[in-house]
């Protein structure tokens, strides 16, 4: 790897990291605004024009709050929990193809940090480590409510990971690759995977809601009934990390949804406009972010529409509906793949 390539990758890594944080920061603002608008209110509008400085104010508040580590907590793990959560949330952005190729001078470079040939597997590996962030935090708090909240959260995430994994296997059967880049390239023009895997998309979407702990699956952290769940004992920026990681996860989930099922940076008929390759790449990236923002909005939209599940309903849906449905989808996909290859 020569110096230019190294520098380009470095810039890309830093910008993806920065953009993730920025979007997560403004998701908190968007969440409050969307919530307000869906409830016929106006939302935060005092800090700066239209309240756009609200996330800064919230951040300052988080930092100024008293830092409390309970006396009986395991101090190392207590800090490791939110750190791990934040770390895994930021790691997934690496394999997402943010755009096509840009040519500047003689250098051509990819708007993807690294194209691992097991990109999808990498995402799932990292996402499943995220569960440990919650479990460690809950265990280290040395508080029975936190522990129960952590158990709730981890069993929920593990249950829905199964269905999510199976729906992804069906997708991999149709695409024939685990590389996120190749999956996006295959969806050029209008050949989006949502058209080939509608049921798989539905399962993936529901599981994405469960994985990011968003309503209607937000039992791990519903403040009103279940006293905050795993982060009951957390305060100050460590609590901020947990909440922030949720928003990064939401951003990354939206990016994955857009990548896997909605064609990533592809858009129908973009080739026929006769634009230069660089312009196509930039427009593609912007459209990709448009899709991501739509999904982030969708996450919030659903939050203010559907009430929270009861815990047994959650488990019923996960094990008795989602997994059989995912298996059914896998089965159908297998039959169709065989039929298209002329097995019958």
């Amino acid at each position, binding site marked *: 790897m020569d110096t230019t390539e190294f520098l380009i990758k470095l810039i890309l890594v830093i910008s993806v990291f920065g953009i993730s944080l920025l979007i997560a920061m403004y998701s908190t603002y968007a969440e409050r605004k969307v919530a307000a608008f869906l409830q016929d209110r106006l939302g935060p509008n005092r800090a700066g024009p239209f309240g756009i400085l609200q996330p800064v104010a919230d951040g300052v508040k988080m930092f100024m709050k008293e830092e409390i580590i309970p006396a009986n907590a395991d101090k190392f793990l207590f800090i490791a929990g939110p750190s791990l959560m934040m770390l895994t949330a930021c790691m997934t952005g690496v394999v997402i193809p943010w755009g096509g190729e840009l040519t500047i001078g003689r250098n051509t470079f990819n708007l993807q940090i690294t194209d691992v040939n097991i990109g999808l597997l990498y995402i799932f590996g990292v996402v499943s480590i995220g569960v440990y962030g919650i479990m460690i935090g809950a265990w280290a708090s040395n508080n029975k409510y936190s522990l129960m909240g952590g158990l709730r959260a981890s069993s929920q995430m593990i249950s829905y990971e199964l269905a999510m994994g199976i729906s992804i296997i069906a997708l991999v059967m149709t695409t024939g690759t685990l590389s996120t880049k190749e999956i996006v390239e295959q969806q050029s023009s209008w050949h989006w995977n949502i058209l080939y895997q509608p049921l798989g998309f539905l399962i993936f979407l529901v599981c994405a809601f469960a994985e990011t702990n968003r309503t209607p699956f937000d039992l791990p952290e519903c403040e009103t009934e279940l006293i905050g769940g795993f982060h009951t004992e957390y305060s100050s920026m460590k609590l901020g990390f947990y909440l922030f990681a949720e928003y990064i996860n939401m951003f990354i989930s939206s990016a994955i949804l857009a990548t896997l099922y909605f064609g990533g940076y592809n858009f129908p008929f973009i080739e026929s406009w006769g634009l230069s390759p660089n312009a196509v790449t930039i427009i593609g990236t912007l459209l990709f972010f448009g899709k991501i923002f739509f999904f982030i909005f969708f996450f919030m*939209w659903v939050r203010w529409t559907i009430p929270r599940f009861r815990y047994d309903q959650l488990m019923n849906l996960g094990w008795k509906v989602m997994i059989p449905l995912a298996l059914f989808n896998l089965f159908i996909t297998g039959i169709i793949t065989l039929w298209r290859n002329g097995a019958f």
Partner: protein
Amino acid sequence: MQALTNRSMVVVNKKMTWMERIYLPAIIGGLMITIRHLFKKKVTIQYPEQERPRSAVYRGWHVLKRDEQGRENCTACGLCAVACPAEAITMTAAERKPGEEHLYREEKYASVYEINMLRCIFCGLCEEACPKEAIFLTDRIVPSGMLRENFIFGKDKLVEGVEPDNRIDVSKRARAHRTY
């Protein structure tokens, strides 16, 4: 039984059909309802800049009235303090000195008159008790504050100004009061 409105729905505990059991149509229906609210007119009133219309006989921040010549009506008789169920009113009486006739209407006046706004329940019994039409509740809202001390309103915050522009109109409230 006849329904009083056409909004009542009969609740039946029937078995759900397949379409109902997959929930998706219901969820999409719900999403459509919430998205409609995104574009609706917002009900928020931006308080300090905008205010909700209030009744002219609203019982808010008290005023100690002056007469037409700008003299304070209050004679520190103490009936308002006696009438006050929250014991929010205290006062100190003083005798009018020669040369102060333009300030106080009668020969006795309140040198200190304090209402504790945190105790006050805005019932209006003080103005009912007042024989001199000196105290009235107005449609002004008591402003919020950070310190308890600031809620003990003295004469500086209660007595209306002498100039015609600074007078506080209580005619509607006074009229409503007289019809009791």
